């Protein structure tokens, strides 16, 4: 079961503002889903390796040669706020 304080902690980790009513709803919904997925805690997984991907691939490297990438103009084009050279953001701190 997930309680209110855990929901608030996860929301903070996830950078999601949530309303007071939503805390209780999420606590109930997440608990319900976790109850279901707890099924896998009954499986004996001793000696089973984890799979991060279905198609195992390692050490894939490309030659380190310079190539064209997005221009500054294109990269900034869809930003909510820029100063013409970079992205503009509110000052850090004073967050929840």
């Amino acid at each position, binding site marked *: 079961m*997930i309680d209110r304080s*855990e*929901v608030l902690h*996860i*929301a903070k*980790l*996830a*950078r*999601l*503002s*949530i309303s007071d009513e939503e805390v209780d709803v*999420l606590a109930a*919904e*997440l608990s*319900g*889903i*976790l109850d*279901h*997925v*707890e*099924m*896998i*805690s009954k*499986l004996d*997984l001793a000696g*089973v*390796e*984890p*799979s*991060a*991907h*279905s*198609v195992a*691939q390692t050490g*894939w490297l*490309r030659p380190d040669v310079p190539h064209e990438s*997005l221009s500054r103009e*294109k*990269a900034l*084009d*869809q*930003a*909510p*706020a820029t100063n013409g050279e970079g*992205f503009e*953001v*509110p*000052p*850090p*701190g*004073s*967050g*929840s």
Partner: protein
Amino acid sequence: MSTDITKLSVTETVAAVAAGDISKANLHATWLDRARLDDLNALSWVADRVKLGGEDGPLGGVPLGVKDLFCTEGVPSQSGSKILEGYLPPYTATVVEALTEAGAPLIAKTHQDEFAMGSSNENCAFGPVLNPWDRGRVPGGSSGGSAAAVAAGLVPWALGTDTGGSIRQPAALCGVVGLKPTYGSVSRYGMIAFASSLDQAGPITRTVADAGLLYSQMTGKDPRDATSVEHPDSVEPVVPMDLTGVRLGVPEELTGEGVEPGVREAFEATLDLARSLGATVAPCPLPHAPHALSAYYLIAPAECSSNLARLDGVRFGLRVDPDEGLDGMYGATRAAGFGREVRRRIMLGTYALSSGYYDAYYGRAQRVRTLISQDFDTAFEDFDAIVTPTSPSVAFELGSKTADPLSMYLSDFCTVPMSLAGIPAISIPNGLSDGLPVGFQIAGPAFSENRILGIAAALEDGLKFDGSPAWIA
């Protein structure tokens, strides 16, 4: 001549274009007229005119519908989300570029569940897509716009993506063909990510041959996607396979409890058809398949919580700034921009990855994933393909499952195991139950697309499905 272009399959159209019976100008004008008939909310954007790409490519100039989440330069690519409303990407996804070059230019973008999270298209920030067979019902999801558009004849064919069933399930619910290819065989570059170890692009079409034709131009290793791999085979034009001696496995775990009677009847009838064509049909255990959904609903949200961290109001998309500093901007932007299901999965995934819970949830889920892959490996020692219903039910009524996330998740239980194992699977129309389409799923080992397409085509020939009731007149 008086050929109705829209009633031809794409494969037939390509041949008619090559023979000079249809001009590309006529082809594009005809399909633009069809796309403008959309009254299902299937399309999120329609081109003013179709821009040609590869003039003489193998796809004949037959225009393509593309799921919203593929980045298309200068064309809105929103992934069904308010947080990306109106977003115009600075580049185009590798697979869309490749298909344009091969002669399938973009004609429309299609609506989807937000960030591909959903099985009904009701999680689209721009309204639900309606099922053309019954407008009171869902088209399935998350590629519901693509499936509905192909079924209704708004586009000749379309691209979808599949993470846990998002091509196959809507294809089943709309009475069209949907192929989820082997993981890695199609570049993911330029697909707005949901769960990177599972996401894969694939075709949604009216015929099996069309699916093979589109897929044949989608494969290839891409330097911009490190998980992409070269397909060991070339994808051949589809011919119905002689099913004599072909061994089909039926996993009881995915065909028993929970499957609606009408869906089961249609499934059994197609097994009889396969037998009559010479195939052998036998039970095939997948002992860990019942745990696939649990593993999936830990792995996919975990990956989504990480992938969606990039949507933070800084570089693109929505920004909401309550003047409470940087963290305040992040939190407010994400709260306003993401819908309920996306927020729920970000929370679930963040929890599953958080300190103290990682091993119990994400770590265990990854081990279950290994067991599921091993089940399939064992099964394919004795069987050429595994068959199941695609969806345990036909299209459900709009609003009937939105209140209970778990009941919605259960609609993926036949499709998720193949996703976790990364193997290819196709859904073909398998007749109707109470007037609504049913899907038949065929899965094979990694890179066996030629085989499952051939089996699918043989069954398609025998089933003679009529999709015309879904056609917008």
